């Protein structure tokens, strides 16, 4: 194994609105090694790699490649420097053939300056043969399985003569046998002197394949150690070793009767046999790593997606939810994870955004009672201290925290019994965060039942009366407020559950 440092990143910082994603991070990667990056959601692994691959631009810091300082302003520069990234969300052109995808943007041409398909196919075949990948280069990309697409992306990276290949959770969507094949490929790449940076949540894989492990936490570099010196326990301690200084103010309120019971909720390939009870006054935290199926559980309960089996009982009544409209009718609200994509309607006013889910209340016979609506909106604005010049302001002009409060208002105005909140404080600043937390606590006190998905460990530990942990589409553990710890949650979240 080489000891020549191929890549050195030093002093890398990167801020997004409301969060310091990377804070003075450094990373050394030697040629001919496999270097695993680990950490919880939002620890900064993917952000750092996107800086390296020219997708994000760092606020500060320097990158050395093979001893020389390099600038990576965009991904084509990264490719030219020999840095290839295989994304978690693959980005092939589905309607093109495998060979065309392999040579996208660098198509070989014949003497008439026309694309030479024969050369493309032949060269693709040569790469596939060398790495014993069994895929016909003439096949159309979208007919391949996810694993096969992954192979094509890797082959593409190899064929660009990359010196450094970044793999972001390459095994999240492929089968055991395909993982074996992938690992064999990685080993032979390592033999040939290529450095691999391997982002993963799966600890077993790390011990199988990695030479070095770097752990990140909250945007900071925690430690870099040879994999041989680590075990599962040590790794978990490094990942969570955070002091819980700012605990969140979930007040102790009497927990009431069961409001919602979920029984055996299953959506094939996504979530499997999800059962739990939710009580009045309770905040139930749903923890797990990215892709564990938490958001999918909320969507299934709320009728956003269809389920294969299982039932939801609200206030003792089994209900059949076919659409979000039914769910709202039954007394549920869902504050979605991605505020911009599925939450706000940017070009509409604060008032419109607040009232869209509860128009029924204010429009007997379909005609809006504007004065009642305005009064209700104003009351919400004052109660939640939403900072907006007027209710007519476009919501896109508000800060993230205030947008989030408007969305909370949207659901409160439907007078729900059950409020499901997916990542309540993602992408909002610290002050607004604690306001949202106080708000949730107050709602629980009023007797609402809250189901909260969160990827932030302090939020899960601080806010939840009870914690369910998910992995691989299943619930793998349940902890009461008294017994829950970071270590226990992470342990349950990284269990390799059989695929749902």
């Amino acid at each position: 194994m080489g000891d020549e440092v191929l890549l050195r990143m030093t002093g890398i910082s990167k801020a997004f609105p409301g969060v310091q994603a990377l804070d003075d991070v450094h990373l050394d990667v030697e040629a001919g090694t496999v270097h695993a990056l680990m950490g919880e959601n939002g620890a900064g692994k993917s952000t750092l790699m996107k800086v390296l691959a020219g997708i994000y631009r760092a606020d500060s810091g320097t990158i050395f490649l093979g001893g020389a300082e390099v600038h990576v302003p965009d991904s084509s520069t990264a490719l030219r420097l020999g840095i290839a990234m295989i994304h978690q969300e693959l980005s092939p052109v589905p309607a093109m053939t495998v060979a065309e995808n392999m040579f996208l943007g660098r198509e070989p041409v014949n003497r008439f300056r026309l694309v030479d398909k024969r050369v493309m196919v032949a060269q693709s075949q040569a790469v596939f043969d060398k790495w014993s990948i069994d895929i016909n280069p003439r096949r159309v990309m979208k007919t391949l399985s996810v694993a096969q697409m992954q192979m094509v992306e890797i082959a593409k990276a190899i064929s660009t003569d990359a010196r450094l290949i970044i793999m972001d959770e390459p095994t999240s969507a492929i089968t055991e046998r395909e993982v074996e094949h992938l690992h064999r490929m990685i080993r032979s790449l390592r033999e040939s002197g290529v450095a691999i940076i391997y982002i993963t949540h799966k600890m077993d894989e790390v011990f199988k394949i990695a030479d070095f492990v770097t752990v990140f936490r909250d945007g900071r570099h925690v430690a870099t150690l040879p994999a041989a010196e680590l075990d599962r326990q040590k790794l978990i301690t490094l990942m969570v070793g955070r002091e819980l200084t700012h605990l969140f103010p979930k007040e102790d309120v009497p927990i009431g009767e069961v409001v919602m019971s979920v029984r055996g909720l299953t959506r094939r390939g996504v979530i499997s046999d999800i059962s739990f009870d939710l009580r009045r006054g309770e905040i139930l935290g749903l923890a797990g790593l990215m892709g564990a199926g938490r958001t999918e559980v909320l969507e299934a309960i709320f009728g956003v997606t269809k389920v294969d089996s299982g039932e939801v009982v609200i206030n003792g009544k089994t209900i059949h939810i076919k659409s979000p409209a039914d769910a709202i009718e039954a007394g549920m609200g869902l504050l979605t994870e991605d505020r911009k994509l599925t939450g706000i309607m940017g070009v509409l006013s604060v008032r419109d955004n607040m009232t869209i889910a509860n128009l029924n209340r204010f429009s007997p016979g379909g005609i809006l009672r504007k004065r009642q609506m305005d009064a209700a909106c104003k009351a919400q604005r004052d109660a939640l201290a939403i900072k907006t010049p007027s209710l007519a302001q476009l919501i896109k002009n508000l800060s993230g925290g205030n947008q989030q409060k408007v969305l909370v208002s949207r659901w409160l105005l439907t007078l729900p019994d059950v409020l499901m909140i997916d990542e309540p404080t993602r992408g909002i600043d610290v002050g607004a965060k604690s306001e949202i937390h106080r708000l949730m606590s107050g709602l629980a006190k009023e007797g609402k039942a809250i189901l909260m998905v969160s990827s932030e460990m302090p939020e899960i530990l601080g806010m939840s009366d009870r914690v369910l942990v998910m992995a691989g589409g299943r619930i793998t553990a349940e902890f009461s407020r008294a017994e829950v710890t970071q270590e226990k949650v992470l342990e349950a979240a990284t269990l390799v559950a059989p695929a749902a």
Partner: protein
Amino acid sequence: MTAAAPKASGSVTRDSLANFVRKYLIVFIFLGMCVLLAVFSPNNSFLKPQNMINVVRQISVIGLLALGVMLCIIAMGIDLSLGSVLGFSAVVTASLVQQQGWKEALYPGLSLPAFVAILAGLGVGITLGAVNGGLIAAFKIPPFIATLGMMTMARGFAYIYSNGRPVSTLVPEFLWLGGGDILGIPVPIIIFGIVILLTHLMLNYTRFGRHVYAIGGNETAARVSGVNLGQTKVLIYTFSGLMAGLGGVVLTARVQSATPALGMGYELDAIASAVIGGTSFAGGIGTVWGTVVGALIIGVMNNGLDLLNVSPFYQQVVKGVIIIVAIIIDERKNR
């Protein structure tokens, strides 16, 4: 802070003035056009009451279609079938009000009250519009494609129904709709005025109206908020079809006959009106008043270019330039 405060308040007034101008820019442009024409039209012909009434009369049909397509555009769709649906509605309406005994009538012996013919014309619009909406909602066909198909089909229906010939010699009671007046105001203008008012109320004071904006603002968010996307879309395109049907009735009464080619290309003027009036193709933005002013601008422009003796060939170029400039201004406004 204290030192900065007066300066800030000064810039606030300047900002709000700029906002005011930006918000009503389209109205200023319209008024500017009118002033220019008042000054430069030969013999002051632009300002003559008869000419003004003519302008509004001419835009009343385009204006109806513009209101229809505006709803579609707000909800991130489009309706290309308006002109063809208008044509089909026109020949159906006309065929039911031909004078009894007219030897070339489609139904020579027929004698129906005018309102039956009007309902038939509106029915054609409602039906074809509902089909558009159904295709878009049930089969998830892009609105551009669904209504493009309907554009061709409805035109075909119009030719089949009329055997490709003009449908003329209509009863006077029906023609009142196009040529009559109430207290000196032409009936088409009154109809347009009523539709403007009702559409405004519908968009701003009904649940359906807010759903239209919500779908354009963020379709996924609207769905999660319990908006029934399919139902709303069917209603949107049905409304658009109804406007085309009504346009067919009014236009037939105005030109006193219907040909199967009637309304060809009108959808483009309607789309242009909506867009000049600030309706955004990115969805969620558009007002009745803006669209009406957009239609007025198109009307005044056509009229003014005629009065100024600009060749029709050049008129097309000028119209195109104005549409594009309007969009550029709109883009900058939304940045």
